[in-house]
């Protein structure tokens, strides 16, 4: 099956600034695909290249197998929900939503009907005749969504559409967006810098940093099996330890922990030498059967969890999480504790 969007070694340069370095991505039809990364990593740039607002310096962007380099934005079967909505201020809500259909030459009655159904879908039927500046941010965001969906694009691009909303609305919209994507079967390419948003909605995620795609995979892949320090650190919380690799073979490595203890763990690299080890805080337990010994600094109460901040023998800070269960008694600051790494807690990174 041809991919909905195929980005092949795409480079984007603005003068001397390189915004994207040789990006390779293949997004399948009907997929909810997320571009995740910190501010300035090139998410918007990549989205704008797919929409046609930026030309590709080198490389190719293919849409259902067709190279679209020469295709004007208005000829691409792609619609965008803009980062700042960009609603037409001189049109009513319903006129905004019907605009794409009007430009496609759909007759007035049909487009009014379709636009009305779109507004229904985003629960804004009562606002059809308002002007955009008479709506709240969240309502404007939903109008932008309805406007982009109305012409039934093959691919929908969403540039941080939830960033202006408050937490409650954001959580509700996540569910709605995901549902909408499943109902319509449209390929969604969703941009966010919020990892929780990415993890909860996406079929697959591309983690980006400094104009490069660091890793592509399902939420589970990138959380459980990060390839490098950036991904391990950006997704969730982690402890990074620099360790010596004793032996690597077939995706498994034997490493030497500080204190001399040896463990085997999955590895993202095949090269021996010094590498970083990512250890997830929730996969560590306090135990006499210790892989590492540490001194407790302090215990932070987080409600469902307790975060225990410790220091390893060399002074490296380290943290672990314990469930806040009734039978658990947290360690006292100053106490020496043994840390046990559970199955799958540690992973050797490529850098």
């Amino acid at each position, binding site marked *: 099956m041809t991919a909905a969007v195929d980005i092949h070694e795409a480079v984007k340069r603005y003068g001397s600034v390189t915004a994207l370095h040789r990006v390779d991505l293949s997004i399948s039809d009907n997929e909810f695909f997320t571009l995740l990364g910190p501010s300035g990593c090139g998410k918007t740039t990549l989205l704008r290249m797919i929409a046609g607002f930026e030309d590709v310096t080198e490389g190719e962007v293919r849409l259902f197998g067709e190279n679209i380099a020469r295709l004007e934005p*208005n000829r691409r079967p792609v*619609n965008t929900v803009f980062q700042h909505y*960009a609603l037409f201020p*001189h049109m*009513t809500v319903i006129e905004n939503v019907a*605009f794409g259909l009007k430009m496609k030459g759909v007759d007035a009655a049909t487009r009014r009907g379709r636009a009305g159904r779109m507004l229904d879908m985003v629960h804004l039927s009562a606002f059809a005749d308002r002007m955009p500046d008479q709506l709240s941010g969240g309502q404007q965001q939903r109008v932008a969504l309805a406007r*982009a969906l109305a012409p039934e694009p093959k691919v929908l691009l969403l540039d941080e559409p939830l960033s202006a909303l408050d937490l409650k609305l954001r959580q509700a919209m996540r569910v709605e967006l995901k549902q909408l994507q499943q109902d319509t079967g449209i390929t969604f390419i969703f941009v966010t810098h919020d990892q929780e948003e990415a993890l909860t909605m996406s079929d697959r995620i591309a983690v980006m940093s400094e104009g490069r795609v660091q890793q592509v995979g399902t939420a589970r892949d990138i959380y459980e099996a990060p390839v490098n320090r950036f991904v391990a650190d950006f997704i969730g919380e982690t402890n990074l330890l620099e360790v010596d690799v004793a032996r690597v073979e077939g995706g498994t490595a034997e490493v030497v922990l500080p204190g001399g203890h040896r463990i085997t763990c999955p590895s993202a690299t095949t090269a021996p030498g010094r590498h970083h080890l990512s250890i997830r805080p929730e996969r560590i337990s306090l135990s006499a059967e210790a892989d590492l010994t540490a001194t407790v600094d302090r215990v932070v109460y987080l409600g469902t969890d307790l975060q225990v901040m410790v220091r390893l023998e060399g002074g490296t800070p380290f943290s672990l999480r314990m469930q806040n269960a009734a039978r658990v008694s947290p360690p006292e600051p100053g106490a020496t504790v043994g840390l046990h790494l559970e199955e799958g807690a540690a992973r050797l990174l490529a850098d």
Partner: protein
Amino acid sequence: MAGPGPSGASGDATYAGLVRPLLLPTWAVVGILMVLPVCLMAVYSFLTKEFRGGVIWDFTLAAYDQFFITRGLFGDEPARIEWTYIGIFWRSIWQAGLATLLCLFIGFPTAWFIATRPARSRGVWLFLITIPYWVNLLIRTVSLKFLIRETGPLNESLMAIGLIDTPLPLVNTNLAVQLGLFYSYLPFMVLPIYAAVERYNFALSEAAADLYASRLATLREVVLPVVKPGIVAGCILVFVPSLGAFLAPDLLGGAKTFMLGSLIDEQFKGSQGNWPFGAAVAMILMTLVMTVLILYARAQARGARR
């Protein structure tokens, strides 16, 4: 007048007493420079004309009668509508309208160009636009006449490169008058449109293109409606003074391009003048302009209330 100022709560009488005196200069300027002259014109338009200029204080509708009604050359025929002045009126509206359109077609792209330059060079471009306007309007109009006359540089160079064999008779035509008006009032078109385009959010154009609008459709459906207030302001600022202009029609036009401004101008000059008639024409012009502006403002307000 005495709105709730900071003095209101404390009842500070000295401060409250100052409000009126402080407003006096404003009232004086508006009163002396605007209200008084207009009232004077209104009154004069109902007085009897004195030969060699001036008025006699006798109330009459003669001036308006002269404008709208004729009773033949010797005043002995039945009253008919006088088309001469209405014709001049109509021609003026037509000329001013064409000049406004010309300003719009040149001014919009110019304003667009300036507003889309990098922020620091915009000031320079705006400054360049205003440079010709440091020269007196009369001098500018005369120099335009020199430029386009039969032996002027425009015709000579066109002939030199062989585009034409005989000089184009540009002076004393409608086109010359429109060019003159265009040249006189172009910045009044450029500046308000510039201000509107500068505020325009270009993401809207991207959104339109994203939703299948061609460039032309984007211009028609999104750009023009959004910057419309600037366009309307520019058109009013060019159309209104063009309607009453007399320098350009006098210097660049001939008898066939006679406009309202010249008609009014003539009534107040020399012994041929007729002050009440000049005042009446001015009043009629002002009434027309005000009516159009008020109707437009009403329509806008209705649109905004939606």
